């Protein structure tokens, strides 16, 4: 339900002229390659941060395929998002190696600290939480990623300090 609501809100805009130009450039350059839809969606998500319905419509139109096909692919893969993500995207690894070392407790602590659940974004747009299956840094289990930064050998009591450092950075900026 939530997803479709956000999608409709997204219908109104295709972003800045710069974003639009980038999107069209991506579509034009990869259109001819067989199986290009995934690549275009990945690039589009890079441009917009997520995949609003308006963007999906443009892609469907340009590729001459139905919107339902585009939407079907978007909702199939966990990497694609229909809703905006936070400025700092937290991703907690729930792969086996991390799970047996207590990553569920790390996730619970982050959720408690930020007052949101996995899959949600804080009201100020600063953080969003997701879970992932193995970033491959099993030697450091349990791990989480914030943006591109990997935090390893975590314990629940380390969580607050890490999140605070991002909040602090934001206040200083």
């Amino acid at each position, binding site marked *: 339900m939530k997803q479709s609501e956000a999608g409709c809100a997204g219908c109104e805009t295709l972003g800045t002229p710069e974003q639009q130009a980038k999107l069209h450039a991506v579509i034009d350059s990869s259109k001819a390659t*067989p*199986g290009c839809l995934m690549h275009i969606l990945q690039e589009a998500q890079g441009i917009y941060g997520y995949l609003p319905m308006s963007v999906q419509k443009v892609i469907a139109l340009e590729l001459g395929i139905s919107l339902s096909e585009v939407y079907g692919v978007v909702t199939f893969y966990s990497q694609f998002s229909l809703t905006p993500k936070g400025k700092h995207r937290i991703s907690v690894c729930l792969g*086996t*190696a991390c799970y047996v070392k207590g990553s569920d407790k790390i996730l619970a602590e982050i959720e408690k600290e930020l007052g949101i659940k996995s899959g949600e974004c804080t009201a100020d747009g600063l953080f969003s939480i997701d879970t*992932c299956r*193995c970033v491959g840094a*099993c*030697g450091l289990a349990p791990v989480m990623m914030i943006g591109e930064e990997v935090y*390893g050998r975590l314990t629940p009591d380390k969580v607050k300090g890490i999140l605070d450092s991002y909040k602090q950075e934001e206040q200083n900026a």
Partner: protein
Amino acid sequence: MTIQELDKIRASKKELIDVRRLVKEQAEKLAPNTGYRHQVLVCGGTGCTSSHSLKVIEQLEASFRELGIDDVLLVKTGCFGLCALGPIMIVYPEGAFYAQMTPEHAKTVAEKHLVKGGSVVKELLYKGTVHEDGSIIPFAETPFYKKQMRIALRNCGVIAAEDIDEAIAAGDYMALEKVLTSMTPDDVVKEVLDSGLRGRGGAGFPTGRKWMFAKASEGDIKYVCCNADEGDPGAFMDRSVLEGDPHCVLEAMTIAGYAIGAHQGYIYVRAEYPVAVERLKIAIGQARKYGLLGKNILGLGFDFDIDLRLGAGAFVCGEETALMTSIEGHRGEPRPRPPFPAVKGLFGKPTILNNVETWANINPIIVKGAKWFSSIGTERSKGTKVFALGGKITNVGLVEVPMGTTLREIVEEIGGGIPNGKKFKAAQTGGPSGGCIPADLIDTPIDFDNLVAIGSMMGSGGLIVLDEDTCMVDISKFYLEFTADESCGKCTPCRIGTKRLLELLTKITEGKGSEEDLVKIEEIAEHMKSSSLCALGQSAPNPILSTLSKFRKEYEDHIYNHHCTAGVCKALLTYQIDKEKCIGCGMCARNCPASAITRTDYTAPGHKLASFAIDPARCIKCGVCLQNCKFKAVERK
């Protein structure tokens, strides 16, 4: 590039690579010929970069400038395997193995070891390489490395991962040269068949037969694919090969293209592996520039090119037909087989798909011969297998051992045993498609067939060690949550079966299970195995079936006694305070997030303050009181 030019590169860098492979004395003799006093190899794989190895490299560069060191070569490699000790740095020709490096440590090593006349900084070495009397043990002689045999990982942690010249000098493209100059496509297929190589992605299908079928298929267009969608959580060997030696995969795919008559390859790689993706892009670019990919390879008349395709986070795309559907740009749903991909695969054309580790074995098979390869391993599983050791084990990391090595050797000798004095309970192999091997089977020699016989499977090679604190019902539930989440929904047995199994397991972990539920679980599991469309659904019940057969008592304990031995299933736990031991300090009450702990009016003999008690109705079973009590008065039952 011609073969002569290739040889020239090999010759020019040969000694440089040899220094990293030889034992200390020989390496020291050879080192002056390379023009470098020292070679410093720092791991640039995901494991070590996550613990900030790149900052170590930056610091070394800065220190070199500062100290005027210009005859030390700094090399960013792939994974050394011992990820638990990252960031790792090895200095040659001594073979000094520095572990858990920080920029400060790097500065110290530069100042004391890498300067002219410097010597090894023993305090910073990996402890396992320093003998009690202070002498240094070569790292190849440590328990972690000693029993290993590196075929697929031969170049990982040896060469600069982004330098094609080093890859060539280390032996990459030697097999391609041999194939294009002296072997017919039939010879190539026969060599791979004779080697006995079986697919390392999970099912263990003979690679040579796959190639033979695809070669026999009629068609002017054929494809070669690489499965680098390593989705099994806890497995990271494919990532390490791609990060440490990407050219070995490109080379092997080109050889397969020559063997079956294909001119285009695709590597389908997880988007969650940014470092691997980047290194592949660099490697493909370099190979094209050198004429090792593209038209007229090595001037010998064969055309082959490779493109990358990025996954987008769907476990089912590791299944071969789903992977191909995904490359075609659709929802990654599997297709019924037959027709098999060797007949009708990608874009409807004959296709072979092999996993990264399988590809990594091709070069040695061609160069050293099928006979050599088939002399390693067990009767029906040849060669080596890479395992990603994880979970409750001291030496978390990547190990490659000959097939037939026992689980005990891997866990106790190579893995260094279980930390914190805990007891080994089981090893999980094969990820969400596999099962658990209990302690009484720890001496089983590991190969494809033995693992199936004891109710598990090889899978891609994730090996997660579980100790006594792991609840087997909970771990099955964990895997079912995974497969229920990742089921693509195309076929009913998998879509609904995973969901129902998860519900039943959840019931049991909440203490609401009944004997009937175990019967139902077995019934659903059988149906899923026999009627799901692809391996995801067919193997999804394996974690339950294997734990149910080997650890049935734990299930029964949850059902009949409402008790979780490992103390994991929250709904079945109770926390109590022993009023005789409680000194009344109040640490527990102050830290209780649910305000469930209050003071009673009982004071134990010998104590000054009244004891505390937990209100079970308010307790959320978080265990904070247990962690905070210094007097062992809090008990978990």
